[in-house]
């Protein structure tokens, strides 16, 4: 009897936890719902802030504002390139910090945290001064440089959190079996750390897509998506902004699903430690 009561209590507890988590997830997704919903709005004037009536107009003509599309393309290019570089640099640092004990590891840890404690406006303006000192024309390249700078820390810390405490004996075993270091890396190390890198990469991609202040200083005459949105809202906020945002969301969902499927496949191919999803 007592056992049954406890089972019921446990189940109730689980339901409560699940329900709570569902609510939190709803909170996270609520604004996204609004963004998607308002892509179907037909605003009365120039500002898409008040719901008027359902319309497919913006979806029929999503590319109406060329400058918006160009800004989105630029943002995606910046995010893509800076993520690749930051993922590489950050992962290498994370590997060094988790795999080796070396003089200077503490300052490196500090160096990773410091950019996160620096207000963005400081990062942006001081970096601009540097570019000017070096006579570098601001534009696409300087945006990418800045984004790599703030992404490296995030990647290194995320990957490091992910791989800390891993059992590396597998590597040693492979070495003992005569595998070359490169082979060990490709067959053992990389599969172990890849999910961490992918997670960090997504984070860095999203951060880059998001960044406004640092970009503002170092963009020169280039206009990224956030810069466009910020500037546009003073004069107009067309539903096309929501349409493009929704399109990016769909694309991300697609990428997530693809990653999921790919990981499941790798999982089947390589029995061993199950790969945690992204």
């Amino acid at each position, binding site marked *: 009897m007592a056992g049954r009561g406890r089972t019921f209590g446990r189940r109730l507890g689980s339901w409560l936890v699940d329900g709570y988590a569902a609510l*939190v997830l709803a909170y*996270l997704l609520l604004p996204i719902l609004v963004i998607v919903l308002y892509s179907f709005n037909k605003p009365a004037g120039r500002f898409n802030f008040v719901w008027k009536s359902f319309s497919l107009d913006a979806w029929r003509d999503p590319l109406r504002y060329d400058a918006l599309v160009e800004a989105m393309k630029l943002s995606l290019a910046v995010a893509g390139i800076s993520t690749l570089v930051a993922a590489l640099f950050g992962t290498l640092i994370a590997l060094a910090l988790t*795999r080796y*004990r070396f003089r200077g590891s503490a300052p490196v840890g500090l160096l990773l945290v410091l950019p996160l404690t620096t207000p963005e406006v*400081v990062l942006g303006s001081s970096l601009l001064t*540097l570019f000017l000192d070096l006579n570098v024309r601001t534009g696409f390249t300087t945006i990418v440089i800045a984004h790599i700078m703030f992404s490296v820390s995030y990647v290194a810390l995320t990957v490091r959190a992910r791989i800390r405490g891993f059992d590396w004996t597998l590597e040693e075993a492979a070495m003992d079996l005569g595998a070359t270091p490169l082979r060990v890396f490709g067959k053992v190390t990389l599969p172990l750390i890849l999910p*961490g890198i992918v997670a960090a990469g997504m984070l860095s991609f999203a*951060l880059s897509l998001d960044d406004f202040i640092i970009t503002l200083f170092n963009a020169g005459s280039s206009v990224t998506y956030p810069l466009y949105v910020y500037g546009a809202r003073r004069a107009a906020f067309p539903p096309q*902004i929501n349409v493009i945002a929704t399109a990016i969301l769909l694309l991300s969902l697609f990428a997530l699903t693809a990653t999921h499927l790919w990981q499941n496949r790798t999982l089947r191919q390589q029995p061993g430690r199950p790969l945690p999803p992204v």
Partner: protein
Amino acid sequence: MAGTAAGGTRQSRAAPYLLIAPGVLWLTVFYVVPIVSLAQTSVEVAGGPWWDGYQRALTGYGTHFFRSLRYAFAATILALVLGYPLAYVIAFRAGRLKTLLLGLVILPFFTTFLVRTFAWKTILNDGGPAVRLLQQLHLLAPDGRLLDTTIAVIGGLTYNFLPFMVLPIYVSLEKIDRRLVEAAQDLYSTPRGAFQKIVLPLSLPGVFAGSLLTFIPAAGDFINAELLGSPNQQMIGTVIQNQFLEVRDYPLAAALSFVMMFLITLGVLAYARLLGTEELA
């Protein structure tokens, strides 16, 4: 951590330095150098003692510093309270839905910060659904509002940095060996006991990392305060921004930045102490 030492002895001493070289070089050139020159700016006071900027930063902007830290702290606690159970459910109870749920957690990242915050404005508008609902429930005065209040700012901060809290906690929970949890459940006989003795302690590194990733950007943020708050909710980020761009009092702006960074670092160290984490992140 045993593998660390073993790895270190076996391979060349230069290996870790080679690994960190590109990233560290990048951060040195594009972060350290500019910051050092900024430090120089902070003490280059025309017609006054070198500490003038710092003095003004400390005496004139105490409210802003205090407010920023308070809001960031509130947002961090809220994000923890909201984020931990979500991370827990995803790690232990989601089964096949795990990837999907994690995807949904980071989905907001892929809409621009600004667009998301504007969406909040739409939700919180004076005539909007949230206000009307709260007024019907008598939780808000008939002439009350949500937009441009402290609640909106802290809510916005919590919202924007919540995924930063969920992800690291999830990662640390995910790493816990399931057999250990099962054994603990047998040993302590209740899920709560197992949670308190095993799961929670093992997830603390994640809690620590998540709190940092929430607290630090929240303390330096100014977009939420600007779009969702009134001038009485201005945070230090706005002040720094204005001193840099409008007033052009560079020594003060630089000094404010350094006081800010110092306070954050102090908070981080205290927090690390509290959780018993030896490393910084």
